C-alpha cells in the first residue's frame, strides 16, 4: 500500500510540515567570490520586461539572469574536475530519485559563532551519531552553522578579510568519511560554498567539492531555516532546474518535517 495517502493526510493535519530551506533570489544576495583572475559567476539580476504598461499592457514579467551557482543552489558532480568523468554527472541526467533523501542535521552553531573558520571533523560526526544514531546511507548531511542568520548582512555573510573568506566547512577527512563510510547522497551548508572559506589551503584544496563530486555526490549551498529541522527524521527534496549539461542550478529546497 502506498504511503502517499498517509503523507497527504499528515500534511493536511499538520503532522508533517513543509519547511522551505530556500533564500529569496535577489540582486542583493551575495554571490560566490573566487580569486579575481578567474572569470566570476554572474550575480542574480532581474529587469522588468513590462508592468501593465506600454511595454505590455496586460501583463507583468521580468527577465532574470544569474550563474548556475546562485542563491540557494545545487552542485552537480560535473561542477568539479574530480567529477568530470562520472556518469550522469550533470543536473539534466541525475536520476530524479537522487534529489530526495533523509536529512541529518549536525548542529555547529556555537562552534561557528566562536570560530568562523570552524572545520567539521570526523569526531564531530561521530559525536552526532552517538546522540542521534548512525547516518543512514543516501542521506543529505547538513552542516547547521547558523550562517543563514547573516544573509541580510552581505559583509557578515561573506566574512572577508584581506586574506580571503572566513566561513566554516568540513575538513578533508570528514568529507571522505561521510562518502566512504556513510555513503551519503550529498552535503549541504548554509554558507556560500560546501567548503570552508579558507579551503583552498586544505589538502586537497576544496575537499568537499573535490571528494563529493569525485564520488558522484552532490552539494547544497546557501540553505536557510536549518534551525527548523530536527537532527534526523526530515526528508529533503532538492531538485535543480533541468539545464542541459548544467553544473548546478538555483534550487527551491523543501523539507518534509514530522511534528510530534
Amino acid at each position, binding site marked *: 500500500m502506498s504511503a502517499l495517502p498517509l503523507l497527504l493526510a499528515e500534511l493536511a493535519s499538520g503532522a508533517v510540515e513543509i519547511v522551505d530551506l530556500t533564500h529569496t533570489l535577489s540582486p542583493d544576495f*551575495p554571490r560566490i567570490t573566487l580569486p579575481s583572475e578567474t*572569470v*566570476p559567476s*554572474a550575480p542574480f*539580476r*532581474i529587469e522588468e520586461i513590462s508592468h501593465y504598461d506600454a511595454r505590455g499592457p496586460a501583463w507583468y514579467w521580468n527577465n532574470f539572469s544569474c550563474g548556475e551557482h546562485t542563491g540557494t543552489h545545487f552542485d552537480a558532480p560535473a561542477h568539479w574536475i574530480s567529477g568530470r568523468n562520472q556518469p550522469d554527472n550533470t543536473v539534466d541526467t541525475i536520476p530524479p530519485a537522487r534529489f530526495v533523501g533523509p536529512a541529518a542535521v549536525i548542529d555547529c552553531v556555537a562552534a561557528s559563532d566562536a570560530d568562523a573558520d570552524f572545520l567539521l571533523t570526523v569526531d564531530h560526526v561521530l559525536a552526532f551519531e552517538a546522540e542521534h544514531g548512525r547516518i543512514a546511507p543516501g542521506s543529505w548531511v547538513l552542516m547547521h552553522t547558523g550562517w543563514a542568520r547573516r544573509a541580510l548582512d552581505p*559583509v557578515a555573510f561573506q566574512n572577508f578579510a*584581506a586574506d580571503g573568506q572566513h566561513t566554516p566547512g568540513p575538513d578533508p577527512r570528514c568529507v571522505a568519511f561521510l562518502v566512504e563510510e556513510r555513503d551519503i547522497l550529498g552535503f549541504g551548508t548554509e554558507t556560500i560554498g560546501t567548503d570552508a572559506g579558507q579551503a583552498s589551503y586544505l589538502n586537497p584544496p576544496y575537499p568537499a567539492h573535490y571528494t563529493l563530486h569525485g564520488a558522484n555526490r552532490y552539494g547544497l549551498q546557501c540553505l536557510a531555516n536549518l534551525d527548523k529541522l530536527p537532527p534526523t527524521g526530515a526528508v529533503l527534496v532538492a531538485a535543480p532546474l533541468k539545464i542541459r549539461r548544467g553544473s548546478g542550478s538555483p534550487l527551491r529546497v523543501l523539507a518534509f518535517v514530522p511534528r510530534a
Partner: protein
Amino acid sequence: MSAPRRNPVLAPNRATIPPARRSRVATEMSAWAAAGVFALQTCGECEAVQYPPRDVCRNCLSPRLRWRPADGAGALLATTRLHYPYELYFRERAPWRTGIVRLAAGVSVTAFLHPDLGEAPAPAFVTARLDRAGQAALIALPDETANFEVTPMREFTASPKGRKILVTDAASPAGIAMVKAMCAAGAATVWAGRAEPWGVVPGYEEAIAHPAVTVLPLDVTDGDSVTSLAGRIGGRTDIVVNTATYHRPGRALGAMGVESARAEMETTYFGLLRLARAFGPALAARAAEGPNHAVAFVNLFSITALVASPAKATHSAAEAAAYAFAQGMRADMRASGLRVVNVFPGPVDEGWNQLDLPPKIAPDALARATVKALETGVEDVFPDPVARQWYARWRDDPAAFARELAEAGA
C-alpha cells in the same frame, strides 16, 4: 558653509542656457575648448590668424586654415555692462560685463570680462572656456591665474566646491582617489557608492573616513540598486562621477570567453546606461537650483574608448560602447546646461594594468585631473602623456592611428 535652501512654495528655477547655435567651423573651436585649449585658426599659407572662425583666409583666401593653440595675450580696448540682454540665460544673470580685446595675434575678440579685470585700456589675457551651452566662450582675465570661483565666472566651471557628489564605485583604486580628491576640492558631501561590500580594499577605509563621506550601496549592474539609490539621493545630487568599470586583459581572439567580456559590458556600458537614466532627469531638473546647482556627469573612461587597444580588445569595446552612449547623454543633457565630462586616461597604475609599460597615471593624479577639469569646465579630459599622445594622433588621423595600433599589437 551651507547654501541657502530652496523655498518649496515658490516655482522652481528652471535651467536656461546661452545661445547654442554655431556654424560648423565655430563648433570646431568649441571642440578645442572642450579639451581645455583656446585655439584660433591660422592660415596654412600666409600664417594670418583668423577670428571669428571662417572658411577661407581673410588675407590670402586660402582654404587651408588650421586650428592652433592661441596666445591669449592682448589689450582690452573697451568694456560695457549689459543690463538687458535678450536671452533668458543672460537676463537672469545680468548685468554682464563684456569687452573687446585686441590680441597680439592681430584679431579683435568680443569676450566676457573677469570681475578682477578693470576698465579699458588694460592688458588682458584671453582664454576659452565652455559656456553652459557647451560652446566655446572667450573670457578676458587679468592674468592666467584668475580665480573662477566668483560670479559669474563660476558659470564656466563645474566646480566640486560646495556640491554634493556621488562617486559610483568608491572601492576601486580610481574611486578611492576620486573620493579623496572631491573631499579635498571642497565637496559638501561625497556619497561613496559600494557594490559587493565584503571585499577588503586597501586605502578605502581611509578615504571614507572623511566627515563629508557617506557610504551608500550601489551596484551599477543591478537596476534595482541604481534606482533605489537615485530615489534616495537623486534629488540632491549635483555631480555624478561614474568610476564603475570592469576590465580584464582580453585580446579579440583571447581565451577568456564571452562571460568576462559580458561582465565588462554589463558594468561599463549598461552600468552607465542605468545611472544616466536614473540620475539624469533629476540632475536636469536641478540644473539651476541655487549657487551649487546640479552641474555635471563625469564618465571615467579610458583612451581606448577612442581607439581600440588590441591587447584590451574586449575592454576597448565596452569603453567605446559607453563613450558612444555618453555622446547621446551630452546631447540630452545640453538643454539644461549639464556638462558630460569624459575623462580618457591612458593606462592607470593599478593592478589590472600591471603589465602595461610606463608611463602610467597614478589614481591620485587621475582624480586631481578630474577635479581640475571640473574647476575649469573642460569636458574632454586627457590627463596623462599617453592619453594626450593618443588623442593627438587620433585627432590627426583616426583611421591611420587605428591601423598603427593594430600593427604594433599593443
